[in-house]
């Protein structure tokens, strides 16, 4: 009799657990080659979520993949559940993994931005087509505003973008930093540079002119692995959306690269993301 009762109780607990959430550890992360700083920042969000889910026996952890492939592997192996990154990385990861882009992160207080292509003020180049046969500076291959968006736009406009130095295509080189991009344009190593509008405004605008400006691009996106229990996912999203409404949440957002808040994607955002896929 006693033995039967114990089995019944065990089965009940197991059922309850399984019926609420299929997973006990939720991992949050972003791509970075130097994870130390990112771990600290993401840990603030993980800790905040942990506090909210303490009673539900769910643990939150941080995982920082080194590159896109690493991120894809982690997601595919259920080791990364919430992926927070730029549009480019998110789209690239989404191509090879089962994630849903669901929210926007206002990183450094910025909801969205534009990608700009700029040249020297006295340059006679006035549009992207004028860049044919010239060399321009992209920031690096993982940069949304400094590579992905403008390259995509150029390709959408039918322009060839390559590194082989052909006269009929726009040649490019990676400057590896926004400062280098500006320096290369100033010192004429390249004819044009690519960056985001906020960065552009922080430099001396009298020295440059913009020849292309993209539409608004969400600053950072929050994607969820589709393997997460939808109920749990929605609960997490609700908590993230409400973080900016309480002091503790605001404190965690501040540590999280001065994030202002999390907001749901708008239909415009969804359209734009589709356009770049």
């Amino acid at each position: 009799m006693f033995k039967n009762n114990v089995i019944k109780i065990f089965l009940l607990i197991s059922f309850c657990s399984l019926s609420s959430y299929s997973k006990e550890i939720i991992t949050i992360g972003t791509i970075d080659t130097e994870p130390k700083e990112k771990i600290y920042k993401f840990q603030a969000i993980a800790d905040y979520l942990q506090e909210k889910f303490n009673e539900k026996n769910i643990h939150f952890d941080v995982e920082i993949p080194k590159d896109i492939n690493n991120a894809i592997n982690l997601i595919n192996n259920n080791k990364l559940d919430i992926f927070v990154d730029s549009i480019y990385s998110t789209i690239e990861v989404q191509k090879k993994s089962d994630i849903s882009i669901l929210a926007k992160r206002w990183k450094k207080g910025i909801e969205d931005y534009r990608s700009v292509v700029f040249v020297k003020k006295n340059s006679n180049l006035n549009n992207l087509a004028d860049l044919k046969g010239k060399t321009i500076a992209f920031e690096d291959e993982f940069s949304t505003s400094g590579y992905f968006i403008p390259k995509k736009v150029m390709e959408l406009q039918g322009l060839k973008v390559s590194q082989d130095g052909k006269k009929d295509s726009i040649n490019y080189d990676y400057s590896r930093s926004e400062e280098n991009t500006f320096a290369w344009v100033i010192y004429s190593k390249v004819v044009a540079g690519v960056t985001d509008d906020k960065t552009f405004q922080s430099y001396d605008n009298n020295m440059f002119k913009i020849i292309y400006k993209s539409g608004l691009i969400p600053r950072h996106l929050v994607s969820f692995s589709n393997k997460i229990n939808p109920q749990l996912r929605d609960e997490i999203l609700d908590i993230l959306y409400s973080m900016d409404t309480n002091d503790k949440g605001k404190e965690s957002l501040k540590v999280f690269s001065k994030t202002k808040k999390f907001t749901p994607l708008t239909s415009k955002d969804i359209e734009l993301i589709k356009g770049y896929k």
Partner: protein
Amino acid sequence: MKINFSIKLKIFLNILFFFSVMITINMLYDISESKNQLNKYLYNLNHSSAKLLKNNIQSDMYGLNYTNIKNTIDTFDNSYFKNIYILNKDGYIFAQRNRREITFNKHESFDALIKDKKQNQFLYFLPIDFSNKIIGYIIIENSHELIKEIIHSKENKILKIFFIMLFVTIIFSSILSFVITRPIFTIINKINSINKNDHLAFNNTSKDEFAYLSKVIEENHNKVQSMNEQLEETVQIEVKKNKEKDFKLFEQTKMASLGEMIGNIAHQWRQPLSIITTAATGMSTHKKLGILEDEFFNNSCETINKNAQYLSQTIDDFKNFIKGDRIKIIFNLTNEINSLLELLKGMLKDNNINIVLDIKNEIYINGYKNELIQALINIVNNSKDALLDSSIENKYIFISTLEVEGKVIILLKDNGGGVPEDIISKIFEPYFTTKHQSQGTGLGLHMTYNLIVEGMKGTIDVKNVKYIYNNNEYSGAEFSISIPIN
């Protein structure tokens, strides 16, 4: 102006001067050396830093990797570096340590640096080459403020040490001068403290130079003391002899003056005696002839009496003169000069000498009357002799007195032609005379000098003068006597 310092002070000042010069030179050398060392240090720091920086950024400069270059120059954080500039080959600032933003400005002194190629004190300049091509330049700008502060701080330290050393030098100089001069002062004090007749003995047992000096002084002192004793004895004898001689001389002079005075008195007596004789003879004749009338008798008696009184007065005057009492009394100078002239008037008249007086009344002197009169008589006699020797027709002696600042000046001037210039400076010396042996002793003016200078603490001078009197030009000797009124 020559200042006499004590030997102690001289030693002190010499040592002080020597060491002060030494420590000043040392201080200046230290300051100069510390500046040189700092410059050398700065040069080495700049040179090695620029070289290291060049190696680190060479490839980044070639690839215009601003971020890497900026990060690299930011690591060259040294307080001596005010700024580090990385210029492109045309001198435009590609990156600089203290500014985040990218500018496109030319370095303000780039052209001058290129032209000059010399590194100035605060700017170090090094080209960045890549594959034998200059692709840019490194400029390290040193912090003027820090360098000045370091130099200033170093100078302050050196100055502090200088003043401490100066203070030590003063103390050291004082001690050394004291130590060196102490034996000298011991000798001086010993010499000062002994009585005139004491035997000098230092009892210095050491074997240094001062012991030798003490011994030499001791021997010499005792030798000199012995000689002094002998000399003193000799001097006493000689002084006694001189005093006796002087007394004799004084007596001789006085007798000579006396002779002259007797001559004067005799001359003065001649007329009253003649009157007395005439009156007495007249009365006797009238008596013999029986015609002696009372009126004639009374008149004759009165004449005799009057002249006898005059003779008596002359005797009093004479007595007063020769009595020679040396008593300090207050007397009226004018009265005494008049009395003197009264005594001398016979002599003056006989020799046709006119006295011209310009005497201020009411000059009272608190002094030795007889000695002054004696001095004046000697001068008048001297003038008389000069006038008699000269062929001048109108003979004058001018006597004038005046009172100046508590002194009375008596000027006696004649027109006897003056004293020859070659002997004028010697006329107050004893036994000096130009007169014939029978006329002068050569002591008159010497005695006069002694009476005025030593007896009355006055002065006497003589000079030859030329002057005009009654539209005639004369020359003669002028004696100027100055004596204090009190």
